[in-house]
């Protein structure tokens, strides 16, 4: 890793960068312009985020605050846990633990640094972690392996049984840094009684582990408050989804990113609720005027990503879609499976959804266990892709509900799990009438395929498949 990167802790730098970014619009437009000229590599992302208006500002505030909590955790006597995007942080907040979600750190870094996370990606390999591993964790893990961030107190993930490369990153971190490790292990089936039983037994073991690590007891009242907030958020997200399926879709292309950023960072916390409310305000207003959320106001195509987005510097994916007048219907990762969720109702698939029951501690724990076992990816990409409630069924249902014109697979070469089945998967989505593009790029590492090439593959696909002229 280059010397200059070791000068300051990387999470501290992210905190300062986003804290400053969140205040940029406080002044005049002219001042903003002058300010962003000083940060050329962050500029594109900021323009895109501020372009959304209030929700954009809230996102920056939210992210800045998230980093601020990480930086000051030790001083405030809180424990830190590195964890993964598909693990609901609600339980951490209930136990006053500060979560550090590696994938979110990676995305933030990619959006702000000139060379993205390249140095940290490489650092992982320098200490023996395989280069073929998933870049989503590697991008920020490298900084922590290098001791270039806050102290990690524990490692918690829930991907065993779902994604090897994901959990392998956390297992490696725990072994390398010699920190306590806990895994939630997902059975291949989602709704069988013995699966539910396994989920819940596993989750109780998790709580024991967290209580042991923090020396705190789980506070029922606090957990209840948080889960009640989760319900509120689920209802807001359900309404956002209802708007999103309208033609034209009144939501701007970046809203999916905001939805899962909110949930991955602040599930059950007011910050997320506030963000969702401000997004809904815009959505309702556009919908009222039957107005597309695209900058041009003209919706030509509707696209659905069946795996992950592309976090190229400057939010280029979203800018490309917006420029091409393509309404973005998100990816499998922006879907939480609450029973209140619009699509869960629409498909009459309550069994696959979770219901929050706040009666007593037991029902609370069962509820959060069910919620966690239905997190994005954890829910849909565990069993065979063509099994009930899994990847294909969910993708087709969502694509149809959203009247998508095409489906794009984008992931990382590190994803054994989806690369192991995406070819037959794409065959089946095509059979069901959805032109499907498989991208070979890496959502977090532009050195696998330059964004220019990725973009030209997308444009070529839309043209050759005669989806746009």
């Amino acid at each position: 890793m280059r010397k200059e990167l070791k000068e300051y802790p990387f999470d501290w730098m992210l905190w300062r960068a986003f804290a400053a970014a969140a205040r940029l619009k406080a002044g005049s437009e002219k001042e903003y312009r002058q300010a962003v000229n000083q940060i050329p590599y962050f500029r594109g992302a900021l323009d895109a985020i501020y372009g959304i208006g209030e929700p954009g500002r809230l996102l920056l505030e939210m992210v800045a605050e998230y980093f601020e909590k990480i930086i000051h955790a030790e001083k405030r006597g809180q424990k830190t846990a590195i964890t993964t995007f598909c693990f609901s942080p609600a339980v951490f907040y209930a136990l006053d633990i500060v979560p550090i979600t590696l994938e979110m750190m990676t995305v933030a870094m990619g959006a702000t640094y000139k060379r993205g996370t390249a140095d940290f990606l490489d650092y992982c390999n320098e200490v023996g972690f395989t280069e073929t591993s998933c870049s989503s964790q590697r991008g920020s893990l490298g900084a922590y392996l290098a001791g270039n961030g806050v102290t990690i107190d524990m490692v918690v993930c829930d991907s065993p049984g779902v994604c090897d490369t994901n959990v392998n990153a956390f297992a490696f971190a725990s072994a390398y840094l010699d920190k306590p490790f806990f895994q939630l292990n997902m059975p291949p089936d989602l709704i069988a009684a013995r699966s539910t039983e396994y989920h819940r037994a596993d989750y109780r073991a998790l709580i024991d582990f967290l209580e042991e690590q923090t020396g705190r007891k789980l506070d029922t009242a606090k957990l209840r408050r948080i889960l009640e907030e989760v319900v509120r958020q689920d209802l807001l997200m359900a309404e956002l989804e209802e708007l999103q399926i309208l033609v034209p879709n009144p939501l701007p292309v970046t809203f999916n990113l905001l939805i899962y950023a909110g949930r991955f960072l602040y599930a059950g916390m007011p910050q997320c609720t506030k963000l969702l409310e401000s997004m809904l305000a815009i959505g309702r207003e556009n919908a009222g005027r039957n107005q597309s959320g695209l900058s041009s106001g003209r919706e030509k195509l509707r696209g659905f990503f069946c795996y992950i987005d592309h976090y190229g510097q400057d939010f280029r994916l979203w800018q490309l879609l917006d420029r091409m007048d393509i309404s973005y219907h998100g990816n499998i990762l922006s879907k939480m499976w609450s029973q209140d969720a619009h699509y869960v109702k629409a498909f009459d698939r309550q069994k696959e959804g979770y219901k929050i029951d706040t009666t007593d501690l037991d029902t609370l724990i069962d509820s959060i266990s069910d919620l966690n076992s239905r997190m994005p990816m954890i829910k849909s990409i565990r069993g065979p892709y063509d099994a009930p409630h899994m990847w294909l069924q969910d993708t087709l249902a969502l694509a149809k509900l959203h009247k998508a014109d095409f489906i794009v697979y984008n992931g990382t070469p590190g994803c054994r799990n989806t690369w192991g089945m995406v070819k037959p998967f794409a065959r089946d989505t095509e059979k069901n009438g959805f032109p499907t593009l498989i991208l070979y790029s890496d959502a977090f590492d532009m050195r696998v395929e330059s964004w220019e090439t990725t973009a030209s593959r997308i444009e070529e696909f839309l043209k050759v498949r005669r989806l746009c002229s």
Partner: protein
Amino acid sequence: MIFAGCDVGSLTAKAVIMEEEKILASEIILAGTKPALSAQEVMDKTLQKAGLSMGKIAWCVGTGYGRKQIPFSNSEESEIACHGRGAVWSAPAVRTIVDIGGQDAKAIKVDEQGNVIRYLYNDKCASGTGRFLEIMADALGIALDDLGKLARNATDPVTLSNQCVVFAETEIISLVNEGRNVADIIAGLHRALANRAASMVGSIVADAEVAMTGGVAKNSGMFHALETALGVPIRKIDHPQLNGAIGAALFAREATAARS
């Protein structure tokens, strides 16, 4: 009316001038690193052959990697679309096209008009491209055009297990060191390349008549290896390497038709 198609690839540049159903002239040159210059050169040569000036060309469509840089093209089409058009024009029964170009290999599924229904690129780390053959011919010290001829003498084709083109080169060198005969190595090369193309065709469950386009199709060894790998006879088309340019010219015709 007279149309032109210009296909600037990574190894060669091609141009075709057509009048309705007839090819008036065509040309293939080695591409330089400046697509614009390669395009100009190949088009000039073709015009000369046809005894025409650029002014006589009603419409010209550019395609290939360099398509954005062609100074004289009126519009662009991706080479995938062009290969679809071209192949079905040359052999109307064709529904599947395997295009092995210098830069990448593609499997393309088309309808009876030559419209693309589905297509796939070669996988990363499994480089079934023309450049693969070029590098290997290089390593063997053999002219690219002689590969097909030499492969005919193969008795026991080698197995190349390495997916990576550069590592495969090491493998080849060690095979030569072991004294394996060159014909067997080349045949093995063709088989490796053909198998990768066949797996693309398998992924898009392509069927019906298959055609092979791109310069590599002129390599008889490759052609037969692909037939074996696919287990079906491949429809020979007259100008496999020009196919993209022909498709482009056909698009040019459609463009003018749409205008009048």
